[in-house]
């Protein structure tokens, strides 16, 4: 069965278990092009596993994953690695920078792996670091940076090769509130301006209205919120509200940020 044509990423009935303990139990999800989808749920609800399944890092035991109307779950390891390298970006909850490379070399790593020239990679990486306000740290090692700066370098690394889909697995987990808002704003603004589809997982989306107006949670920046509970999708009453509110003033403010 072919995926619906307007979904860039589409999964149906995904099951996955870690050594017998179930993590995902039949999750289905569709993500349209250019959409920012927030994936929420408590710790252990399967957010990270779902992102890993969708990005082809692990193969689901049952179910299907399609990207741009092509199956991912039937691809071999090398083909999935190519897909991740060329079409996907990944941001982890910790920056995971290579400590012996400078900030710009870290950010340019995907381009270098693509085989671009040293100078072109440096130019692209520096321009992304400038856009994310860490241009002055480009020649420093990760040891010399603050955690928020490191996380922004990780964001630059995920965006530098202009991926089709960006997977962000709790990108603000180690940050303070003010840094969270900055990183999320930078991330969503960059994604909107380049038409990048984003899947943003976070466990701390507070679903009351007051918290959503502050974009520190990330929920305010998302078009849609998908909630997972114990490896299954759960429908919350706030779900439709978030979709309706996405064109509200906060979302517009995020879109209008110049990057």
């Amino acid at each position, binding site marked *: 069965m072919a995926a619906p044509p307007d979904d860039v990423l589409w999964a149906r009935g995904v099951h996955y278990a870690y050594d017998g303990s179930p993590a995902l139990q039949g999750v289905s999800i569709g993500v349209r092009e250019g959409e920012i989808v927030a994936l929420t749920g408590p710790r252990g609800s399967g957010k990270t596993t779902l992102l890993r399944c969708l990005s082809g890092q692990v193969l689901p035991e049952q179910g299907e994953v399609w990207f741009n109307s092509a199956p991912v779950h039937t691809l071999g390891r090398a083909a999935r690695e190519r897909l991740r390298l060329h079409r996907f970006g990944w941001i982890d909850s910790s920056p995971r920078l290579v400590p012996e490379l400078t900030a710009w070399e870290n950010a340019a790593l995907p381009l270098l792996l693509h085989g671009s020239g*040293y100078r072109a990679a440096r130019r692209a990486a520096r321009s992304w670091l400038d856009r994310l306000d860490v241009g002055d740290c480009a020649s420093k090692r990760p040891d010399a940076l603050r955690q928020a700066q490191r996380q922004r370098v990780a964001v630059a690394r995920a965006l530098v090769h202009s991926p089709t889909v960006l997977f962000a697995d709790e990108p603000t987990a180690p940050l303070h509130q003010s840094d969270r808002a900055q990183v999320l704003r930078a991330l969503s603004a960059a994604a909107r301006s380049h038409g990048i589809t984003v899947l943003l997982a976070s466990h701390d989306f507070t679903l009351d209205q007051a918290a959503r107006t502050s974009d520190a949670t990330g929920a305010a920046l998302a078009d849609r919120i998908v909630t997972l509970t114990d490896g299954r999708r759960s429908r919350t009453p706030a779900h439709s509200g978030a979709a309706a509110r996405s064109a509200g003033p906060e979302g517009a403010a995020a879109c209008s940020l110049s990057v």
Partner: protein
Amino acid sequence: MLTLRLTLTAPPLALLLRLLLLCASAGIGLLLLATLSYALEHPGHRAAALVRLLWCLVPLAVAAQLAAALGRTEPRPEARSGLDAAGLGPARLPLLAARTAAAPGLAGSALVLLVTARGDIGGLFGTDGSVHGLTLPGAATGLPLPEQPLPAPAVVTLLSTVPLLTALAAAWGARSSAPAPAAGAAAEPGTSARSHRGPAGSEQTLAGRRDDSGPSCRAGLLWGAVLTSGGLLLAAYAPQMATVTGTARLEDRAVRIEDLATSPLAAGWLLAAFGLMLTGPGLAALSGRLLGALRPGPVRLLAGRTLVREAPLLGRSLGALSAVAAALLALARARLTGDAPLAPGPLVGATATLTGCCVAGAVLAALTRARHARAPLGELLDRIGAPRRLGRAVTLLRAGVLWAVFTALATTAGMLTPLPPH
């Protein structure tokens, strides 16, 4: 009990290293007892006995280095956090490392004690200090070892040095401020949280502490080069001095070895070996810097930079290994060219072999540590979808460069080493 369990469930490499430590302990114990026996036989030759005792320091130092490497490697990093949570934190972990390293040392010493007592353990606890049961097992094993009866307190004191020393070295290696790889300094949540928590000043010092590994490597390279060349020069001029004073007696091989041990030639060799060991980190860092220079691609960049970072971890052990390789090469040259090849006694030969094995074991431990330190990088490359062959290419390139550099070093040192005159 915990020591026993951790010993029994250790990975094969740790078991191998402990076995090596046991053998080294037994070998060094026998060597020390032979020295004691010589001193008892020749009460007049104090200087000669002292020189023999001083030469025992070389295998002792190597065994201590192996124990320190074991203390750094074991318990594994993933087990360490669990032990820390269970109360075996950075303060008590050295005690555990000391116990686990002392166990094989004690076993080796006990083995020697059993062999020297020839099953007559009861004689050990007799009233008189000198027990006739305690002699070196020369007659039983058919080896030319002295048959002098040894005083029990001296035997026990000498045999306790190796376990004590290995325990101290392991505790030293396991202490929390031991040189750890900056591996995943930004990748590990714990370390990044630590540096994040501190104010800007402490971050600067943290960064400064990591950055000063470069100058220390350079200083090590310089000192190592000076010591190596000084040692080789000393060894080169030693034969002339020996012929001038006329101490070389060629007719008796045993005496000849002894003369060699006291001559400046051997001191030069030792100095050169020490210099090679000091050269290691600087040389590895330098080759890493050269590898990552001039607009590198991803393979060269990652291989070069990881080499620079791992240089303090690997360099010393690799330098020591190249010293051993140089010694083997020099030995081969002596066998090929000399008509009177070096013929060390069985005990000296066995201890030298054990010393070489200990150096190789320390290299294995350092390589394991470096592999653990590289694990976050492999995980990251998998996340961003780097092809597997990239990781393999990085590993191969790094290993190839290290192999080439240290083989060249060992070959140069081995070919330049002056041989004893014949």
